[in-house]
Structures are given as C-alpha cells and as structure tokens.
C-alpha cells in the first residue's frame, strides 16, 4: 500500500509542476517539455491506481492505455518540435 | 542458501556496486571534463561488468546469461564510443588529423 502511495504522490507532484510551468513559461521548448512531464505524471497516477499490491499485478487496461499514450506522445512531441523550429525560422527571417 | 555460487555472486555484485559508487564520487570530485570521461569509460564499465557477472552467478541459466553478457558488451562499446566522440569534439583542433 505504502509503495503505491509514494508513486501516487510523485505522479500528482509531477502533474502540479508541469501545470505550473505550462501556465507560467513563454518558451516553446520549455512548454513542450512540460507537456511531456504532464503525460508522465498522468501515466504514473494511472498505473499506480491500477497496481494491486496484494497480488503484485498491474491491471492490463491502464497499461495498454499508457503504452499507447507513450507512442502517441513521442509522435506529437516530434510534430510540435517541427512546428516550433519552423516558427522560430520564420520569425528570424 | 549459502552455496558457493550465491556467496560468489553476492560478493561480485557488492564489488560492482562499490565500483559504481566510486565512479559516482569520482564524477563529482574530478576537476575537468577529460578526466571525468575516464569515469564513464572505465570505472562504470567495470562496475556494470561485475554486477552482471554476479547476477549471472546467482541465476545461472543460459537464458539469463546471454542478455547479461550483451548488456555488458553494449554499454562498454557505447561508453567508449561516446567518450571518444565527446573528447574529440571538445579538443581545440576538433580532433581532425
């Protein structure tokens, strides 16, 4: 029980830090990083709530969601970074 | 429980973890980048090899020895390559010639 609680709290902490930086930062790269941290926090809360400490088994449905989320996130991050690089290039010219 | 392989394995793992800890301290204490690179290429590789060797002693099945050996091989090569490339990229001549 306690071990799950640690990851619950850590996931919520990641979420809070990421939301705070998303709201206060103006830098594009920093915001994309914050989005990634936010996704990690959500994944951690999901997996920790799906973990059953009695049997030591984690619910496969949240696992599949998180797995899907990781792959979607890296694709979205790449597209966002391409967009940021393009914006930067056009503002300099 | 206290058979020879398990004692040997635990000892090797303890030695390996000791190497890793020394590497961490050295990485913090060494004065410049080029000396800190030694930590990555030597102490860390030695520590990981000892850990993997100890883990192989503890489990002792071929199915686990193969991935452990590959782990050591891959990290040794990666560490050496990255260390070399980083060192070359920070030397003034750019490492050409």
């Amino acid at each position, binding site marked *: 029980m306690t071990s799950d609680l640690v990851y619950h709290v850590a996931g919520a902490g990641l979420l809070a830090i990421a939301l705070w930086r998303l709201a206060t930062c103006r830098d594009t790269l920093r915001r994309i990083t914050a989005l990634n941290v936010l996704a990690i926090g959500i994944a951690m809360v999901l997996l920790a709530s799906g973990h059953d400490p009695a049997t030591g088994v984690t619910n496969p449905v949240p696992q599949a969601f998180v797995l899907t989320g990781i792959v979607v996130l890296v694709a979205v991050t790449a597209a966002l970074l391409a967009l940021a690089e393009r914006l930067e290039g056009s503002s300099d010219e | 429980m206290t058979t020879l392989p398990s004692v040997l394995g635990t000892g090797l793992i303890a030695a390996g973890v000791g190497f890793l800890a020394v590497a961490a301290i050295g990485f913090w204490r060494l004065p410049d980048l080029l000396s800190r*690179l030694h930590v990555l290429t030597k102490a860390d590789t030695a520590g990981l090899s000892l850990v993997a060797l100890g883990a192989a002693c503890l489990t002792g099945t071929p199915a686990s020895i193969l991935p452990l050996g590959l782990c050591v091989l891959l990290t040794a090569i990666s560490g050496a390559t990255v260390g070399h490339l980083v060192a070359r990229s920070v030397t003034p001549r750019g490492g050409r010639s």
Partner: protein
Amino acid sequence: MLDFLAFVALLATLAALPRLVVGPSAADRIIAAQLAGTGTVATLILLGAATGTSALHDVALVFAALAAVSGLAFVALRSPRR
C-alpha cells in the same frame, strides 16, 4: 541483501544529478546522462535478480542498446557542418 544493493546502485545513479545541474560545459551534462544510463542498467539487473523476473533483462538490454543514441545525437548535432 540484493534489495539493499539495488538501493545503493540507485543512489549511485542519482549521484550523477548534481554534475548534470552544475556541470560547467554542455558535454559534462550529457556525460552525466550517459552515466545515469549505465547506473540504470545496473539497477535494473539488480532488481531483476532480487525479484527473479527475467523480463527486466530485456528492459536493461534495451537501455544498453540505445544508451549511445543521445550521446551520438549530441556530438553529431554539435559538429560544425551539422
């Protein structure tokens, strides 16, 4: 015993963090990340040995195989001709 050793390996991994934060040059920070990668592989091997799950060997192997990619990216993107 193995639990404790895994904990020490984790601490050795985390010990790369201060150098990552203060490390004067960019190369120092990347090397710190590489060092943390090696430490993570060792921690994974120890966790696998402590709990007897062989699936962790695959995770360690994936880390070991791809450890150099970010270091290579750093050097390749830094070189003058890009």
